[in-house]
């Protein structure tokens, strides 16, 4: 079947199998390899992307279901001049990543957390990221990064291409 999606601001149409998972569509069809797959059971959140303003786990969404949608992945966050998104910047400054595998999904989920709550407490960040697993950081610096990004202003809770992350 044919699907048309806007991925990181660029519209594209592709012929896909109905069963193609959005995560594989992004990785294999679009060649956007930042989005990782860490489990089979919607548990780990490594594949989190933003679809029409909401964070979703792209391993549990069909490309067909996302037909007509706007999708933002980690690759779509930085400015055209390479300027880091406030959440990317905070993850770097607070050392919120080690091996980097959970990071693309974690950053996208974190943007969703700040969209939902512009000034989250330690506990609220943890609850907001309950669907994202990290084996390296013990979450400590991830929580600090999200709080630090939130303090820097509302842009931390937004994705480019003027699609706000909605509640």
């Amino acid at each position, binding site marked *: 079947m044919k699907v048309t999606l806007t991925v990181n601001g660029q519209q594209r149409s592709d012929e896909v199998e*109905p*069963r193609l998972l959005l995560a*594989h569509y992004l990785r294999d069809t679009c060649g956007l390899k930042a989005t990782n797959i860490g489990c089979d059971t919607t548990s780990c*959140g490594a594949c989190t992307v933003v679809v029409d303003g909401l964070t979703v*786990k792209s*391993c*549990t969404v069909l490309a*067909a279901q996302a037909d007509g949608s706007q999708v933002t992945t980690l690759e779509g966050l930085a400015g055209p001049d390479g300027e880091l998104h406030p959440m990317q910047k905070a993850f770097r400054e607070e050392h919120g990543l080690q091996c980097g595998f959970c990071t693309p999904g974690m950053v996208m989920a974190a943007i969703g957390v700040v969209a939902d709550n512009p000034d989250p407490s330690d506990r609220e960040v943890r609850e907001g990221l309950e669907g994202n697993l990290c084996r390296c950081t013990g979450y400590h610096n991830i929580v600090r990064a999200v709080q630090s990004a939130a303090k820097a202003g509302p842009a931390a809770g937004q994705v480019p291409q003027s699609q706000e992350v909605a509640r």
Partner: protein
Amino acid sequence: MIPGPFDYVRPTSVEEAIAALVEHGDDAKVMAGGHSLLPIMKLRLAMPAVVIDISRIPGMSYVRVEGDEVAIGAGTRHHQLEHDEVARAEVPILPYTASQVGDPQVRHRGTIGGTVAHSDPASDLPTALLALGGTVVVQGPNGRRSIPVTEFWQGFFETALAEDELIIEIRVPRTGSAGWAYEKFTRRANDWPIVAAAAVDGRVALANMAGTVVRATATEEALARGASIAEAAALADQGTSPGADMHADQEYRRHLARLLTRRALEKAAGGAAAAA
């Protein structure tokens, strides 16, 4: 893991969806958010030949007051319910329970109709719905009918829904300021409940204590005849048939059912009963 191959249809009206169900029978599965269905398709525990994606049918997502009831469109996503002002005012146990489902990403996709249709005894929203009472409105080729929630869930992954029927709406009584609570016991915040208890207006329902979500009938009867919360809650596991797994054996599940029922009832009563 990857689902087996299937044909995909995306109806734009309820009638079209029902026609597809009639055509494909039990070869077909209805998908809304896909967060119950896709996981089991990836594990190849379900291999439908046809997936009917109803998420593009307009008008399936709403929460509104209709007389003494609140009507919730089957396509309403958990996060919409969680933040819906009407639901918060009229039937607050539902938005709270919706906030306890999975994690934010799951709540962004999952729908109330999907979780009701899935009939998992460890599901959050069905537990709250069973405590609330109310009906599931379904539509088939011969029109609509209403099924009381007490009759809807018939077994593990089994419901009163016919093969050619679609869930349209969930209707629950307005509870307004009546006390309520949903007590969910998990090891990790985003897990399925090991056991959960929902209490509202003297009714109690339990998750994961049988093949379906169940009412704690003995507790309700005891409360009705004036028993204390502690006395009534001590009967919560009567008539249940909990399973055993790595998290809890039957004895511990029964204990949790009694404990969570007591806590839910105390919370619903505003803590007054705890002091009494």
